[in-house]
């Protein structure tokens, strides 16, 4: 093996890991400086090639795979297409919602939120209120209505189980439970304005909103209770305090 060949071997495999015939002691000695230089070069190359790896790469790879597992049996491409389609539909829907004046088509936000708040309140409090029968008098009712500047000008026509003030969304309300035609009915009077009379069905309950002047009366009964009829009966007897 001539010198050139020796150097060639050193440069293709400086650590001499796979040489069938290792260099002899003399050859090694004669090329000691060269071997040293190349090992040094290799060391530098190794350092240079050790580029930084993003910290959380392993986690992101594993996340990607777990997403794929969850996406089964969709193929990834199908999934991407589906997602793209869903995104387009959502985007178009978003544009429509923004463009159209929905007020005449659906319940306006104020009504929706009055109804929602009322129903939620009834559901939340029913475990506490249902067992009660405080046999509330008409006098007590009118006392509780006073802060809203309203009063019933006749005796309240139903048996009243419960009466209180309560928080109603961001406002306050009078909260009353009485015996309706079929079951217990909850009545709220709150200082939130509403424009039109409205009935609603939510979470298995039916309800009616009656606008008062600068306030609203909301009735919530179980499904099948004719709250509109009750509202019709109550509306003429609830009057502003003048």
């Amino acid at each position, binding site marked *: 093996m001539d010198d050139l060949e020796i150097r*060639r071997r050193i*440069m*293709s*495999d*400086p650590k001499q*890991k*796979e040489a069938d015939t290792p260099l002899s002691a003399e050859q090694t000695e004669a090329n000691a400086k060269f071997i040293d*230089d*190349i090992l040094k*070069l*290799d060391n*530098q*190359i*190794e*350092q*240079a*090639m*050790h*580029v930084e*790896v*993003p910290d959380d*790469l*392993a986690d*992101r*790879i*594993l996340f*990607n*795979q777990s997403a*794929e597992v969850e996406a089964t049996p969709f193929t*990834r491409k199908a999934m991407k297409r589906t997602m793209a389609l869903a995104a387009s539909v959502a985007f178009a829907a978003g544009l429509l919602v923004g463009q159209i004046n929905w007020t005449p088509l659906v319940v306006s936000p104020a009504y929706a939120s009055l109804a929602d708040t009322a129903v939620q309140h009834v559901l939340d409090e029913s475990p506490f209120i249902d067992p009660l029968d405080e046999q509330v008098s008409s006098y007590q009712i009118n006392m509780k209505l006073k802060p809203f500047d309203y009063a019933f000008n006749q005796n309240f026509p139903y048996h009243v189980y419960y009466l209180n003030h309560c928080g109603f969304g961001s406002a306050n309300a009078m909260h009353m439970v009485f015996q309706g035609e079929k079951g217990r009915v909850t009545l709220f009077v709150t200082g939130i304005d509403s424009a039109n009379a409205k009935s609603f069905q939510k979470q298995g309950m039916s309800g009616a909103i009656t606008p008062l002047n600068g306030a609203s009366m909301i009735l919530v009964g179980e499904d099948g209770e004719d709250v509109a009829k009750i509202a019709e009966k109550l509306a003429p007897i609830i009057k502003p305090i003048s």
Partner: protein
Amino acid sequence: MDKQKRYEALVRAYHRDLYRYAYWLCKDGHIAEDLVQETCLRAWRALDSLQDEKAAKSWLITILRRENARRFERKQLELVDIDDHSGEAKTSDDPKHQHEWLQNQIMKLHVDYREPLFLQVIGGFSGEEIGDILDLNTNTVMTRLFRARNQLKEMLDESEVKKGVHNG
């Protein structure tokens, strides 16, 4: 060990080498990461075909190479070479600068030389294993390894000379 755990162990053990390999193949960190992600997903789908854990590294590298080749098929364009970064002369002895300078020189190597060099220096593969991965015979691999180092050595020597001239 169940498939999920086996996969996690593989990812944790090899993602760094894979990323670095991808980086030196494609010269771009973002593309490198995409390549690694795609490689790992393919590895997950084909994990049952990996019989011997000792072969995992070269198996993953082979998948990554194929992914990289696909990328070229898709794009049908050569990546633009990284700018030369005034790397003609190693003008500073600052270690960080030297490090960057050497990185640039490595990038300047043809990928045919750069790739086996990476597989030997970082991957720790033998000439024969590199031959298997790159589908070359061992002699060709050894020749390329020689040329890779030889070119780097010449670049280094040349810059030393230039520096000498500047300093003298």
